[in-house]
């Protein structure tokens, strides 16, 4: 049985019809047409589905949509011209682009929480995402270019 719930996504109240068993990833993509969060492993391993909930990165494949009630949810569609998005473009930090929105969401949450993050913190957070095209070097350069502007 589907039920109606309300989710706050990218600053807007959205009404969604879901099953209790639907993940947030399914609700975002199939109910709201927000396809920026990607299904990769759907097992919590790859990070392609990362969104930001209450300021922290979360893998939307291992979260139920009902858990999002009353929380501030941000998806890649809610970011507009942020420094990390610009840096990804400038540094060519992607190839096929499948992992990119997940990486950007994680980087964005990191920059907001730790604007002057040390290398060890950056590595700790970014190990949550996998890039099959191995753009790691360029992604690292993109993050460091934003961090150095911050400092």
């Amino acid at each position, binding site marked *: 049985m589907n039920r109606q719930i309300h989710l706050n996504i990218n600053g807007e109240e959205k009404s969604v019809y879901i099953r209790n*068993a639907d*993940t947030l990833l*399914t609700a975002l993509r199939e109910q709201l047409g927000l396809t920026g969060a990607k299904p990769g492993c759907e*097992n919590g391993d790859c*990070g392609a589905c990362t969104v930001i909930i209450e300021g922290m990165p979360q893998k939307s*494949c291992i979260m139920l949509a009902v*858990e999002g009630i009353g929380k501030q949810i941000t998806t890649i569609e809610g970011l507009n011209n942020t420094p990390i998005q610009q840096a990804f473009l400038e540094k060519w930090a992607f190839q096929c682009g499948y992992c990119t929105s997940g990486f950007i969401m994680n980087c964005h949450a990191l920059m907001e929480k730790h604007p002057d993050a040390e290398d060890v913190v950056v590595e*700790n957070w970014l*190990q*949550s995402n996998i890039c099959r095209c191995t753009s790691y070097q360029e992604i690292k350069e993109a993050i460091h270019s934003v961090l150095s502007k911050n400092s």
Partner: protein
Amino acid sequence: MIPYNFDYEKPSSFSEAISIYEKWEVDGKNPIYYCGGTEIITMARMDQIQTKGVIDIKGMPECLDFGWEKDQLVIGAAIPLAKLEEEKAFPLLSRVCNRIADHTSRCKITIGGNITGKINYREAVLPLLVADATCVIASKTGMKQIPIHDVFDGKVQIQPPEFLLQVRVERKMTTLPYLSEKRTKIDRIGYPVVSLAAIHAEDGIRIAFSGLCTDPFRSLSVEEELNNRSQSLESKVQSAIEKISVPILDDHHASSAYRKFILSNLLVDIIKEFDEVSE
């Protein structure tokens, strides 16, 4: 996608949670307590668990408690590992949490779920075993405080509708010298081939292991050998390994001979490091 649907409730008190559990059990819903939910979602997706009733325990204040109450550190079952890693109230626990899964997953995986989960590693329990933590259990008659050694025997021995509400650690345990090490098959992130957590208490080294045998454990006879001052370093370590009474795992992560090899090197390093601290 999870191939079946379920009812979902997020009660605001533990007594309400227990009532829902009992009702749903009578209704044949095979209810399940839901904390971080990462294991439940991944197993349900593969049809490895079946339930028609999910009780989310993140809505009750006791499960979200985190902080000092007199000389006890109170950790609610729903506290995510990433918070424990960052706050460093119990540095050994922070360090162990830092090596469980990856940072984003740790924002969702909870300490309660890690300890009570079906995935055998349950690494967050290691610091609690060496620190003689106390478990707070929600029961029909109220909250019960039970020493972790009476609740945890490789797995948490709590019979629903009871569930784990909190763990508590004495302040003096959080300030002792500590070490933890984790070795995986390949990467920094992964299930452990050997994971261990140790403290140097007044009575000597206390140590607990995960990944080595089917379930995590702390063994007093292993510790006795490691603290035996009459033996050389190598023979202490050898005798300690001989005291492990359950079979050392032999699986696709590592052979048992390789696990023993890693373990023996780690134990030598740990004794040496603690010796340096106490000199």
